[in-house]
């Protein structure tokens, strides 16, 4: 008996410029509208045209939290796709290809594979252009998976509405022909999806989710220099600048971007910059300026593998130690590392409150995997969100002191332009008035005042979240974007009757220790999971608690983990 499967891991491959990324997002949205859950990830070289690109989409009835290794439906727009990904196919996988362009006999496909030869190019060219092979293959894919066509038609209309109206009918016709090609043949495919009840879900990545949260929280000024994988934050903001009256400035470099948002924050606008490791390197000196002048600033650092240019379109959690220590001297900073798109939205929502309340630098660490990985999630809930600008005064009290010593280290702030007073923001060590002061007595008081804010902030932060079986004897510890992968792995382990729990850090610094210490005491085996070579979070934990990890699962190939890698590592722990 053949076991039918109600999920699929779909992969499309071809050269850059083949419209692979866009069709991946369209498919994800299509699944979301069908009440299903999708998660996409992409892999592409640093090229605008050419090279080998893939997009993968896992679709399930239950939340899809990560990428998966084993592919069930492969769309090959070129021969390289088959060459490179044949080893990833499940034994009952299907391959959609164009027999006029790919000689499938050259490859060691299995007898159990379903080979579907569709004249993709002929259909695409007949309706319009060769690039439309992407739409033809999407039409074919949804037919093969047993889903209906109508929602795709609507999505194509929305995708091209406005500027490219002429492309709508030809793309619909091309997709429909791909769809009918499958429907007219009796092809048996084990992976069958069914429309689920609509759940008011969205399909979004962490860059867009963060951006939306930031807009909601009153963001007014963005200064950014483009750098993969953070650039879509710049284009998101630019696309919405007039709708929300946000000034979006593409700067001459990241040094300018960081210093501009310090100026913007000082003047009183909620200000943001976003970059990746290379650009963050250029911002380093200014981070300390924000710290010293106690100017609220929010910086997104979407990590990619270094050093130097490294693997510019790939992913890594390699910049935690850098973010923690960047810039000379000692000053308070906060680091948030969202684990999924919902946490990214919340980071966008809350970062500016933290930055203004504590008058400090907030660093949001994303990475390529989460920045560009679209996920189907429940529509974001922001009903309880309130703007908190901390000790921001609209009128200056008598004898106002900008850097007044207070019990919580936070001084009341007035904005330049406030009448009846003036003050200096000063990168030199200064007194309560902002005037340079090099005395030992003042230095100690000021250092203590600034660092005090970190203690107060730490008290406000929630403990990290514990997932899985509270009483399990095996515990996983991780931060940031590995969250979904580990959660999928826990589900798999549960099926294998292995009980595991998982402590995930979204708020990375200042580090909350209580739950961690309790867990480590209780667990027999603890595994630290990080997408880097030197276990940077492990170093942070060691620095803050003295705890050293014996078991570490580290991956630094420039690719994110797959759930089975976590499962295997846990099984080996036994």
């Amino acid at each position, binding site marked *: 008996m053949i076991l039918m499967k109600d999920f699929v891991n779909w992969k499309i491959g071809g050269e850059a410029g083949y419209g692979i990324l866009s069709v991946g997002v369209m498919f994800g949205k299509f699944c979301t509208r069908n009440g299903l859950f999708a998660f996409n990830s992409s892999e592409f070289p640093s090229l605008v045209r050419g090279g080998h690109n893939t997009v993968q989409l896992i679709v399930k009835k239950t939340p899809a939290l990560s990428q998966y290794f084993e592919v069930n439906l492969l769309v090959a727009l070129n021969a390289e796709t088959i060459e490179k990904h044949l080893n990833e196919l499940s034994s009952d996988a299907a391959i959609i290809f164009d027999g006029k362009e790919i000689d499938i006999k050259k490859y060691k496909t299995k007898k159990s594979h379903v080979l579907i030869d569709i004249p993709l190019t002929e259909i695409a060219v007949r309706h319009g252009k060769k690039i439309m092979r992407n739409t033809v293959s999407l039409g074919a894919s949804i037919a093969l998976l047993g889903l209906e066509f109508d929602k795709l038609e609507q999505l194509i209309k929305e995708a091209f509405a406005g500027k490219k109206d002429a492309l709508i009918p030809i793309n619909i016709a091309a997709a429909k022909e791909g769809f009918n090609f499958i429907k007219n043949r009796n092809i048996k495919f084990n992976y069958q999806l069914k429309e689920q009840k609509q759940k008011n879900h969205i399909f979004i990545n962490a860059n867009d989710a963060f951006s939306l949260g930031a807009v909601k929280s009153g963001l007014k000024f963005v200064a950014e220099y483009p750098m993969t994988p953070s650039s879509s934050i710049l284009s998101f903001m630019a696309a919405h*600048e007039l709708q*929300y009256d946000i000034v979006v400035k593409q700067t001459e470099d990241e040094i*300018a971007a960081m*210093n501009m948002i310090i*100026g*913007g924050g000082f003047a009183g606008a909620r200000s943001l910059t976003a970059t990746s490791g290379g650009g963050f390197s250029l911002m380093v000196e200014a981070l300390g300026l924000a710290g010293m002048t106690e100017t609220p600033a929010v910086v997104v650092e979407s990590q990619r593998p270094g050093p130097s240019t490294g693997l510019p379109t790939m992913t890594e959690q390699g910049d935690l130690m850098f973010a923690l220590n960047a810039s000379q001297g000692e000053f308070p900073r906060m680091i948030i590392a969202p684990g999924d798109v919902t946490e990214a939205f919340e980071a966008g929502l809350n970062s500016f409150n933290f930055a203004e309340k504590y008058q400090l630098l907030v660093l949001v660490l994303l990475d390529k995997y989460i920045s560009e990985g679209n996920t189907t999630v429940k529509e974001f809930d922001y009903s309880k969100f309130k703007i908190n600008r901390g000790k921001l005064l609209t009128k200056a009290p008598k004898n106002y002191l900008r850097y007044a010593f207070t019990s919580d280290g936070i001084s009341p702030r007035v904005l*330049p332009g406030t009448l009846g007073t003036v003050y*200096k923001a000063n990168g030199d060590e200064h007194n309560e008035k902002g005037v340079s002061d090099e005395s030992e007595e003042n230095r100690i008081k000021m250092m203590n005042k600034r660092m005090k804010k970190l203690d107060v902030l730490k008290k406000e932060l929630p403990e990290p979240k514990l997932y899985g079986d509270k009483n399990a004897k095996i515990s996983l510890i991780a931060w940031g974007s590995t969250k979904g992968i580990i959660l999928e792995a826990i589900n798999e382990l549960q099926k294998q009757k292995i009980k595991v729990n998982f402590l995930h850090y979204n708020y990375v610094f200042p580090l909350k220790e209580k739950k961690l210490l309790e867990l480590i005491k209780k667990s027999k085996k603890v595994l630290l999971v990080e997408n880097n070579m030197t276990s940077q979070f492990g170093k942070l934990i060691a620095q803050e608690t003295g705890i050293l990890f014996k078991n570490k699962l580290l991956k630094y190939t420039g690719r994110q983990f797959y759930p089975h890698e976590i499962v295997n590592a846990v099984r080996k722990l036994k």
Partner: protein
Amino acid sequence: MTELKDLNTKEIPTWCPGCGDFMILASIKKAVADMNLNPSEVVVVSGIGCSAGLPHWIETYGFHSIHGRAIPVATGIKLANHGLTVIVVSGDGDGYGIGLNHLIHAMRRNLDITFIGHNNQIYGLTLGQTSPTSTQGAKTVSTPHGSIETPINPLSLGLASGATFVARGYAGNTTQLTDLIVKGTKHRGFALIDVFQPCVTWNKINTFDFFKQRVYDLNSEKFNTSDLNAAFSRCQELGERIPTGLFYQTETDTYSDDLPQLKEKPLVKQNITNVDIKSVLNKYK
């Protein structure tokens, strides 16, 4: 009324006795008082170097930032609140060396900012190294055998970069300098005011005496300040006679003028509660 004494601070400048920076400070104060600007609506922004202490000695808002970055900090301030008068004080190291990239872009953006370049042709605070405007052959502690490089000409750089107000002052003539700062601040757009500011400690060539013998007021003759080519030509004159004054001025939209986001009010005055993101969120459905 803003009076000169309102702009005095309790703190006393730490510049060397006789430094040209004193005269620049006096001219800025006089200009702010002459324009009757409310000190609470003025922000003076500096980077690092001898010039950078200046915000501490004028009773307005101030931002003493890091080396070369006064312009981007000032840009952020101006974009966030274009109601403020923003004056950048910089130097030949700060503005024409480490921060030059920002200066060029600020000029082509035509932000409504006044840039005052304290140009002493030497690094003073770091004890006498060569600067981007040091004359060729100048012997300094970092060029003991004479500087090899051609100096930057801030005025022709400004003209080439699209600055809409290009002027040169001399610290020894505070009447003219005050007038240039008033004109530059009132000018809608980026005002580049390069100021010859003799360093009495380190620069033994470009001294007060040196300039006294050479400078003359370009605007005392019939000079057309809307003629870009004439401005280019006259700012090359750096020999026995050196012109000062307003070289070039033209009126065009400022960067803020062209931002519809700022039409109604500055960013900092806009209401940020209850931003409605529903319509954008719906696009992800």
